[in-house]
């Protein structure tokens, strides 16, 4: 018996979501009174994982591009080797891509969007969000092996230092019919999935030419930029920025909505963000009912002021 976590890194450093998965895995291992093992790809320094409760790292060297099928296969082999009965992954695009294949490989029940440690381990019951964060449900996983997809930012980072062992792991690599031709990723830009803060704007901004101040605000905050659906449908911003029930989910610590009315489909996607700030000229905009802090005001006046004040604040607090 053991718990296994899949640890993602980027440019050799562990992603925050991965350390959160380790923290969560530790809590599950504690509940089951067992060990926590982690699979790590192409990473030299694994020490931070010991801080988040990982007993043993299975370190894989696989120089090729991420391939979900091959990675899922490697995780299946690692889970079998360690006799894992719970496998935990993050909600990143890559983790969500490979998790269903992993679960078939292990003949395991898979529950995504899990927001808490298991309610009980016998029976094995987890709480997950459903209906695009409009509700939660408790689900019992009835298979012997369980795969859990942890919601971003739901559990947080919890340190528990243990002595870490690193073992190199050489699984057999299967073939895949899929080949990666090209990866197009903006360097130095925070993605919505990884962002602690998201600055989002809607049709209230009037046109794409007005996004300069949104990008500047995001820049000052180290935030990702996002938008409402009509803004991406109109081609003002790329589709990848569309958040909401039919777009991307946002689970950041801070979500700033500028000139967005707060339609039910938009709110569904951002409800699990912790703190929401709204800037809107219309005091009746539905978003004010769903937010923590609000300013009734014109974005074209408020945002430049906010940028200026935040710059001063940052200068004083760094």
């Amino acid at each position, binding site marked *: 018996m053991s718990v296994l976590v899949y640890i993602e890194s980027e440019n050799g450093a562990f992603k925050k979501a991965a350390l959160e998965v380790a923290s969560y895995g530790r809590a599950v291992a504690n509940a089951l009174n067992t060990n926590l093992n982690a699979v790590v790809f192409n990473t030299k320094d694994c020490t931070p994982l010991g801080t988040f409760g990982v007993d043993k790292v299975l370190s894989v060297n696989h120089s090729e591009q991420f391939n*979900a099928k091959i990675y899922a296969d490697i995780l299946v082999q690692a889970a079998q080797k360690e006799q894992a009965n719970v496998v935990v992954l993050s909600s*990143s*695009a*890559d983790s*969500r*891509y490979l998790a*269903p*294949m992993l679960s*078939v490989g292990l003949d*395991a029940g*898979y*529950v*995504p969007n899990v927001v808490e440690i298991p309610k009980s381990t016998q029976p094995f019951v987890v709480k997950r*969000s459903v*209906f695009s*964060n409009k*509700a*939660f*449900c*408790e*689900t019992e*996983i*009835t*298979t012997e092996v369980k795969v859990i997809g942890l919601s971003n930012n739901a559990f947080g980072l919890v340190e528990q230092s243990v002595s870490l062992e690193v073992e190199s792991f050489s699984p057999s690599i299967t073939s*895949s*019919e*899929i*080949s990666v*031709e090209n*990866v*197009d*990723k903006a360097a130095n*830009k*925070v*993605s919505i999935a*990884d962002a602690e*803060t998201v600055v989002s704007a809607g049709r209230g901004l009037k046109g794409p030419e007005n996004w300069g101040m949104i990008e500047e605000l995001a820049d000052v*905050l180290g935030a990702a930029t996002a938008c409402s659906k009509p803004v991406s*449908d109109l081609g003002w911003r790329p589709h*990848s920025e569309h958040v909401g029930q*039919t777009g991307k989910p946002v689970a950041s610590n*801070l979500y700033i909505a500028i000139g967005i009315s707060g339609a*039910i*489909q938009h709110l569904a996607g951002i*409800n699990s963000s*912790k*703190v929401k*700030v*709204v800037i809107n000229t219309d005091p009746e905009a539905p978003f004010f*009912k769903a937010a*923590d*802090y*609000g*300013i*009734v005001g*014109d974005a074209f*006046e*408020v945002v430049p002021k906010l940028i200026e*004040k935040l710059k001063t604040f940052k200068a004083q*607090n760094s």
Partner: protein
Amino acid sequence: MKILVCISHVPDTTSKINFTNDNTAFDTSGVQFVINPNDEFGLTRAMWFKEKQNASVDVINVGGPETESTLRKALAIGADAAFRVNTPATDGYAVAKELSKVAKEGHYDLIIAGRESIDYNGGMVPGMMAAELGASFVNNCISLEIENNTATAVREIDGGKETLTSSLPLVIGGQKGLVEESDLKIPNMRGIMMARKKPLTVLEPSSQQTTSTTLKYEKPAPKGAIKMVEAENIDELIDLLHNEAKVI
């Protein structure tokens, strides 16, 4: 080319979410059901392959008789034939197994599903089908071209996109981008009339094996009151975000 489009039947995005039977069941009263938005993009892309590359397009749902109106809508949009596997869709893994069985028997080259259903947001059925079928899989698919048995697909990744090529058979988890919002097909009168004569075959499920059970539902805790800040008083907002919310 034979295409199978998986259609999940979900509450309209404006639905109020309530539960009955002591919070153990979703309350469907007053709820409008629609084709899952991600599947609408996939279905429209399939129509493009039908028109431009002479593909045949079948649609399928795993669910009770109440989903047939949704399948008829897909037929009205232009699908050739529909299947319904007659069992409630309670477990993603079980649904994937039923769909895979039909896909295998029908020798489909391309299976289009959605990135996720907007009800349970599982994002599990297409990847599980691919694994069951031993087919290639592209998730979060935002563009798909097929030429001489080779697919070129674009997948959205966190912070960018990735272009992939694959042989067929292929399963995709599709989403907006496969076609533009403005190109989505809606049924016209002629389509609706024709759909009545198209075959909708009901199949019995092969197994009832499940991997999970939903025990009970819960609504999020009600939100606390909002704090309003004057537009002239940005310093106060910064102070609240720093000292009270501790997010900057």
